[in-house]
């Protein structure tokens, strides 16, 4: 012990000057925030949208379901910021109520498909061999179907309802997640630190929990933000095609569909939800890009 004690103080002083500041996730996110203003703006927009959707009963003086016949098809004005629809309902109010479903449809099925996909993908990637073969062929089959068609089939079978939409979209989405999780796992499995854990004798379950999942996380978070818009779009398409959300509920896809017949006279009915979909999709993409940069340790070493 004495051998090292004598040298330790010198080394300690050197190290202190050498080692950079402790840099946690918070610091990195803040640095990213400074670098990527677009991602921050997107995050702010999404948060505001969620808040507005939650507090819309308080914020809006209008009823979302029962209209006022005297104010049918009015153009945007001070009273109705985005105009009114064919039943005299305030489009902005309906848009925010619709956001509840559209955002939920973006997040919940994506979350479910992420959980299924990550579990199956990591198992396939780590186990390899037959397990890998079976899981991945199953995923191939899922991916071979046009996803919208598949979702439609599931919806027809299960019937309408928000829950069934969640289920249909989750079943459609897991396969692509599994592919990403599998390829991440395979490359992580070959890293020296996983080899090191194996050489120590760490059991597979713990290797996956401690080494593989945390290191997959950045890729998965990015994938999550990128999958949300596709779920929102799928729901919009399903509702547009008449197998998704049914009246008197509203979702953005349904609103676009309902406004279709008035596109010429009252374009705001369709355009407002369309713009909302576009903004949310873009925001998610920007946020995903920003997160990918922020979570990449290689971009943060210098």
């Amino acid at each position: 012990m004495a051998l090292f004690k004598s040298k330790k103080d010198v080394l300690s002083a050197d190290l202190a000057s050498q080692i950079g500041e402790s840099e946690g996730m918070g610091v990195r996110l803040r640095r990213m925030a400074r670098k990527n203003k677009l991602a921050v703006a997107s995050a702010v927009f999404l948060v505001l949208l969620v808040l507005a959707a939650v507090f819309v009963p308080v914020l809006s003086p209008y009823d979302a379901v029962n209209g006022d016949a005297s104010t049918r098809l009015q153009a945007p004005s001070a009273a109705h910021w985005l105009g009114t629809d064919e039943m005299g309902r305030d489009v902005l109010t309906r848009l925010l109520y619709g956001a509840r479903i559209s955002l939920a449809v973006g997040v919940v099925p994506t979350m479910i498909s992420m959980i299924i996909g990550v579990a199956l993908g990591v198992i396939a990637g780590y186990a390899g061999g037959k397990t890998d073969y079976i899981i991945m062929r199953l995923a191939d089959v899922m991916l071979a179907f046009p996803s919208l068609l598949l979702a439609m089939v599931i919806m027809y079978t299960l019937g309408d309802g928000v829950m069934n939409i969640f289920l249909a979209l989750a079943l459609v989405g897991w396969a692509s997640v599994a592919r990403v999780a599998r390829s991440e796992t395979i490359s992580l499995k070959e890293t020296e630190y996983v080899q090191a854990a194996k050489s120590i004798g760490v059991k597979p379950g713990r290797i996956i929990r401690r080494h593989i999942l945390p290191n997959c996380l950045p890729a998965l978070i990015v994938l999550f933000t990128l999958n949300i818009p596709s779920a929102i779009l799928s729901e919009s398409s399903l509702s547009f095609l008449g197998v998704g959300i049914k009246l008197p509920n509203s979702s953005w896809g349904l609103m676009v569909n309902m406004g279709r017949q008035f596109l010429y006279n009252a374009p705001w009915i369709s355009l407002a939800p369309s713009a909302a979909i576009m903004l949310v999709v873009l925001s998610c993409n920007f946020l995903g890009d920003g997160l990918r940069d922020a979570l990449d340790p290689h971009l943060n070493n210098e």
Partner: protein
Amino acid sequence: MAEKILLEAKDLVKEFPAKGRKKVHAVSHVDLTIRAGETLALVGESGCGKSTLGRTLIGLIPPTAGTVTFEGTDLTALSQKELAPYRRQMQLIFQDPYASLDPRMTVRDIVAEPLETYGVCPDRAATTQRVRELLDEVGIPEEFLYRYPHQFSGGQRQRIGIARAIALRPRLIVCDEPVSALDVSVQSQILNLLKDLQERFALTYLFISHDLSVVRFMADRVAVMFLGKLCEVGTGADVYARPLHPYTRFLLEAIPQADPRLRDDEKNLLQGEIPSPIDPPAGCRFHTRCPYATDRCRTEPPSLRPLEGRLVACHRAEEL
């Protein structure tokens, strides 16, 4: 030799599948013994199979054929579960200190992993205390316990890797090119540390390296490997003073000497490239590069035989 044998490999073979039903002959019929307390160096150029051999010896890669015995127990006959108590006794230090530490774990968690895996300490606090002691042993001040790997330099990371390897107080440590990614001055620090630890904890090292200078400093005995086979095994002093195998001689001569007076523009250099381990040459595997090769070398593989107090695999060792 009075020292007892710690690990012994007999007729060890490791082949990997390659494209088109071919095989990579990474390790071909290797016999090797490691004695308790010694440092045995495994030297060879890239692709010669030295890393594969090291990992096969400690059971990290299952061999295609052959046996590995650890103090009389045949490890190749054991199940994964039965292997666990032996695996504890054999640890690995990796080449790349940047890749061998999980970037998302703190130093404490990295060094604690082996302790937690085998439940060495009764609780979390005791584990952390043990980690502090281990870090102290390798010269990392304890105030860096909760730092992440990327905040350290290469040498410091390698110290952390060493702390992890000695955490379970193993008998044998396989050091796989532990200093080749480090700067010269840092290299010496790490090599000194490895020697100190060996003395304090009576460790046995299998020291894998392509750098003959480093091996000269570390090794008691040296095993030279070429394309999956051993060419020469002997004490460091013998092999460096008078190499018997032509390949060993060329390796030693190729080292660039740090003395401008020793320039030799005419010295014999080994010609050609290393043959592919997918399709190794028949006979002696070195014959395609060997200037002394005869017809016998091209057809009959030489066996590792005793000569002048060491082992050598060359038909013409005596005459050359």
